């Protein structure tokens, strides 16, 4: 099977969907002539032309809102935010318009837009560029949220997101763009809402999403190596829809849960998952559900300190041991 990067996987997904459906358009700052700030769309302008691959001015509220409007009339815009952090400039368009239009029209209108871009810290770009808004996005009924942790999922989820008839926030990660894994050639879909058990285990469920999964897998290796602990690692992949069943099944098996994510702790995805578990699997638990997040402060710039602020293999390993105590 070919080994391709997360970046190439996203490009392949968008390209296949552009070829498949004339209503798919990729739009954003520097996506066309500059080939993308992070080169996700490299070569796509040359291949598909300026009608399908469109450079926008720096006007997030305007062009995201425009994408929402175009989606209402049946286009399937894929809107790139250079950094997902800039979603806040378009907050009203996303959460008032995209999220509510179907409801407020009594189901007459739908909004098949994808809003995508990198949402992560770890590259020392400071507080304004390091937001991880998955829980904020998923808070809004009407919005779907996916966070792929690897190239295979990135491709399959992107294709599903583009075909989805609801607005999907697609959160990527600049640190993962260069990470490669086996990805089959051609058509496959990963459905939204299906978690993936990345590593089977019996002693503790380490659940999470995004890049934290890559770190959790390494921490699980360490736990095995040093303490013969068999950790199960569950990648949610999709935050809303959420695969509650896979979460509960894992916890029922292991009786312990650590949720790992890069977001801040308040009202995080992990908080939601902990609540679901305590509601629906309380009797199976041998310990409280533990969460590991970024340290609760805006993203610090200082490179060595930012490392400490974020989840790391070491922190996950330690938190897992604490959960098992």
């Amino acid at each position, binding site marked *: 099977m070919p080994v391709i990067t997360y970046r190439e996987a996203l490009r392949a997904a968008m390209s296949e969907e552009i070829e498949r459906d004339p209503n798919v358009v990729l739009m954003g*700052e*520097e996506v066309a*002539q*500059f*080939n993308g*700030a992070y080169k996700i769309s490299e070569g796509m302008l040359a291949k598909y032309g300026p009608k399908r691959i469109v*450079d926008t*001015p*720096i*006007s*997030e*509220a*305007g062009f995201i809102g425009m994408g929402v409007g175009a989606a209402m009339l049946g286009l399937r815009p894929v809107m790139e935010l250079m950094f997902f*952090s*800039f979603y*806040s*400039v378009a907050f009203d368009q996303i959460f008032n318009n995209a999220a509510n239009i179907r409801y407020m029209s009594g189901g007459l209108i739908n909004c098949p837009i994808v809003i995508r871009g990198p949402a992560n810290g770890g*590259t*020392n*770009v*400071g*507080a*304004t*560029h390091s937001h991880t808004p998955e829980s904020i996005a998923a808070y809004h009924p009407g919005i779907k949220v996916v966070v792929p942790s690897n190239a295979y999922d990135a491709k399959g989820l992107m294709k599903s997101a583009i075909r989805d008839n609801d607005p999907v926030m697609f959160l990527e990660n600049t640190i993962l763009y260069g990470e490669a894994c086996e990805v089959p050639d051609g058509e496959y879909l990963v459905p939204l809402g299906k978690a993936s058990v990345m590593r089977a285990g019996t002693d503790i469920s380490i659940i999470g999403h995004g890049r934290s999964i890559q770190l959790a897998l390494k921490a699980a290796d360490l736990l095995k190596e040093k303490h013969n602990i068999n950790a199960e690692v569950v990648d949610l992949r999709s935050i809303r829809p959420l695969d509650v069943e896979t979460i509960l099944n894992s916890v029922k098996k292991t009786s312990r849960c650590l949720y790992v994510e890069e977001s*801040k*702790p*308040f009202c995080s995805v992990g908080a939601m998952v902990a609540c679901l578990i305590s509601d629906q699997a309380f009797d199976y638990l041998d310990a409280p559900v533990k969460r590991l*997040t970024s*340290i*609760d*402060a*805006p993203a*610090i*710039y*200082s*490179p*060595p*300190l930012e490392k*400490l*602020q974020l989840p790391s293999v070491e922190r996950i390993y330690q938190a897992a041991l604490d959960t098992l105590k």
Partner: protein
Amino acid sequence: MFGSLTLNKGTFASNYYFNLKALPVTKKPSSSKKPEVTNLGYDARQAPINIKLGQDEKIALYRDMVRIRRFEERCLRSYQQSKIGGFLHLYIGQESIAVGCASVMGKDDHIITAYRDHGHALAVGMGMNEMMAENYGKITGCSKGKGGSMHYFDPSRNFWGGHGIVGGQIPLGTGIAYALKYKGLKGACMAFMGDGSVNQGAVHESYNLAALWSLPVVFIIENNGYSMGTSQERSSAGPSLAQRAEGYGMNWAIIEDGHDVLAVRDKVGQALKLAHDKSLPSVLEIRTYRYRGHSVADPDTTYRDKAEIEAYKSTKDPLNVFQLALLAEQTLTDEIIQKIDESARAEAETSAQFADASPYPSIEDIKKDVYWEIDNPADRKSVGALFFD
């Protein structure tokens, strides 16, 4: 004094499209035609604000531009040595703007800008040590290593950042102007942005507020021709960026000779005066050029050619142009030039050593400076948990 100056008249002749002084609030609807050049013969050297400049003051202007350039060259080296993380946006080529603007600031005038902020910071008097240490992420940095290169601040010097979100600083600049007016101070805020930022809604909302409420703000567009890899023509509709002010009935002007620190002083000085005397906002578009990629990470190979960069450098370099002018009028000598250069290099080198030797913040520092009440526990009025780790 300037009569003996044989060097390119064109270099100093500022081709203003409009004279701010002569321009009351414009009522005409905007035309899509390019505005006419109305005062070609204008010479920035003869402007009252410049004619009174003493030799030392002129040398100081030159020195500040050199300091910015040497500092940034040193930053670039540190970045290449991986001492600096994240983004590094260099101001090289645009020094005349920050220095010109800062040099006409009075006690109650303020500055706010975007992420390309090293020039403004040095121009208002921030020190290289605290700036370089910030780039290195050290606790001795101006923002204690928390903000990085894009987020310098020094309220004690009326410098309000340093902002990473394109256009996000413009409402803040408008708010500073509001506060100045509210407090009855005779000051203004210069709110800087790039040519790409003018398409943000927040900028337009600020224009309207400023014009509607007659706020003492000078919106300064540093038009270096590009927003990342996008040329002005590919991002902005309309005849010029500054002319959009007409839609709000605001004064505006284009400064073609943005590389000429004296032209910048003159025009910005007039706009500040308008803000001080009549509490009127204005929009200035200053034409300039950046020599380096958008940030150091930008390979700068796709959207412009080297010849374009060289052409600008060879005729309009702000340092060279001013140096030649000051040499011609014998304000500068080769010896002084060399001394200025050496001392700027040494200052930059020292700042790198200072940054290197400084400690990083501690892990406890991550959660300081988040809430005023946490940092000032004796004065805390609220109760309950503020952190959730």
